[in-house]
């Protein structure tokens, strides 16, 4: 019976905490509603499409392939990213380049974003710094799966 009393106290304390949150937040909400600027807001949430947070510098966003100075892909099709990719979303086909300095370049480079888990292992594995995930692009939802598959062309001409 004595323990029950203890529970009861805690139950009351719990509802007092939530009630306090409600009342305090409500006060700020009402103040803001009437145009009174307060340092504290009623809610900590961010109203996403209108209001965006800054993307951190090291945030892993949409991939892009880097170019050489002459516009060719920097990628040499070593397939290390394909090997390390835990979700097997990268597919590369290599071709021989007539330039003996390059020798090997990707004729096909596919990233299936619908499968990608954005772990960034491909960026870590790349020996040529050819793939990066620094475009800052995070809104790439599509209406069908086909549009989620990026090829060499679109990866090379990514914004930024």
């Amino acid at each position, binding site marked *: 019976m004595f323990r029950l009393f203890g529970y009861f106290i805690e139950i009351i304390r719990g509802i007092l905490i939530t009630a306090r949150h409600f009342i305090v937040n409500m006060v700020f909400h009402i103040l803001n509603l009437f145009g009174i600027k307060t340092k504290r807001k009623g809610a900590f949430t961010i109203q996403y499409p209108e209001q965006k947070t800054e993307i951190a510098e090291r945030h892993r966003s949409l991939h892009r392939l880097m170019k050489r100075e002459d516009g060719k892909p920097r990628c*040499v*099709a*070593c*397939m*290390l990213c394909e*090997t390390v990719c835990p979700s*097997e*979303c990268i*597919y590369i*086909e*290599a*071709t*021989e380049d007539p330039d*003996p*300095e390059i*020798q*090997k370049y990707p004729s096909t480079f*596919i990233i*299936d974003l619908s*499968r990608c888990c954005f772990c960034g292992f491909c960026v870590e594995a790349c*020996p*040529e710094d050819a793939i990066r995930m620094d475009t800052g692009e995070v809104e790439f939802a599509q209406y069908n799966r086909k549009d989620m598959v990026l090829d060499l062309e679109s990866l090379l001409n990514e914004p930024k």
Partner: protein
Amino acid sequence: MVEIFINDRSIKVPEGITVLKAAERAGIHIPHICYHEAFAPEGSCRMCLVEIEGHLCLELACATQVKEGMKVFTETENVRQARQGVLEFLLAEHPMDCPICDKAGECTLQDYYEQYGLFESTFMEQKERKDKNVPLGKGLILDRERCVLCTRCVRFLRDITQTEELGVFERGVYSEIGIFDQRLIDNNYAGNLTELCPVGAITDKDFRFKTRNWFLEKGASICPLCSRGCNIFIEHHPGFARFDVPKRVYRITSRVTSREKDQKEKGYWICDIGRYGYSYMDQDRAEKIVLKQGDSALDPKKAVTYAADQVKKLIYKNKLNRLGVISNTWLTNEELFLVKKIFTENLESQKVFFPTTAQREADDLLLTSDRTPNKKGAQEIGFSLEAISEGQVFDGTELLFVFWASPFDLDQLTGLMSKIKEVQTKILFTPFEREWNKDFDLVIPTAVPAEKAGSFTNEDERIQHFGPVLYSPGQARAEWEWLVSLGKEIKVDFKSYARLSSPFDVFQMMKKKIKFFGK
């Protein structure tokens, strides 16, 4: 037998062998690059240095013979330092283009750096630039920057093929491998050079840049392209979860078995015909059972029932002499045995015909003149290959079973097609989708040797067992599966077929019946 001590471990080895071999026997790996078991020691790479008690300097393990009571140390500080030094010099002029090197992943230099090197490079200067794309002939490409001058390739062409197309030119730091005066390599064993090269200096066009070797899975098999039956690895790509790879088999490499190790000139190599002749495994494969009349999509059971019904019709009419079989020597021992059991023993047909295969040129190393894998096996099972002539097999034949597993020699069957077309009912077992398939009433897809288990008997009368490496595509199954279910369905000797569920079971039956296989 002498007793020596390697890292304070006593081992007994025969007299006269080298320290490296002795260590290998004891399970201790001494790193080596230029040394290859098939050749005499060269001693140019200096990776195999070991410390021997009583000797003033480090000795070459590959070239030092064992002596009674010799004490060898392979992991002392001196040895490790020496190895690191050797590696550092080798890597100083190495281009480090592992990302585009096909050898990466199975490269000796890479492995040894991981295992014995792991030093920071102190080489600050610009690396020497050399030719990166020198054609050597037969699709081989030499990259001189990557070359570590182990001269394995030179020795191979000198000692094994004795054609001596490659040599070391210039001296000192300018030394380079090259061909003499635009005379390209042109022998049937040139493909071995890519395998032999410890680094990625020699690569071949066939595999170059197609995939990376760590994607490939190795499956042990037997080369069916001639009656030698070399041991091979079929290196195939298991595929990716989401993307289709263009083909399954990417290359064939040699497989050294302990049995062949003693034959230096034969055991380690495979010929270029076997090495590069793998495209048939993926090209033009028949994947569906096709019945000329009726529905095209047929399940295996119905197909077997159809074939068995044709046989039963002849049984009921008591006209089994009108049953003909065209077999071939691409079938395994087990399958040939089943052909014999069903058609010759159970159905008492004498008309099992083997088309004569053209004899081609043999070379004196490995390649034989008979380019089918199992002629010896067919003979041992009891088919006399020339006993039945072409005329006899078509004489009054109403039902014809054709087994055609060879991807080559197409003109042989083409020559027979005009006569085959006249037969009332004809059934084809083939792994390939060919022009003539549409002339048959029933086409049953079968497996190529890489996809089935069984055994071949090679020219030296050796029975070589092998297992499946690849999955057979679509509805294709190995011939022995079809034959066993056909034997069951014909119901002449149901009991004996009911027990057979694998080629091993068939082989056990063969062992009892045929003396050659029982030994």
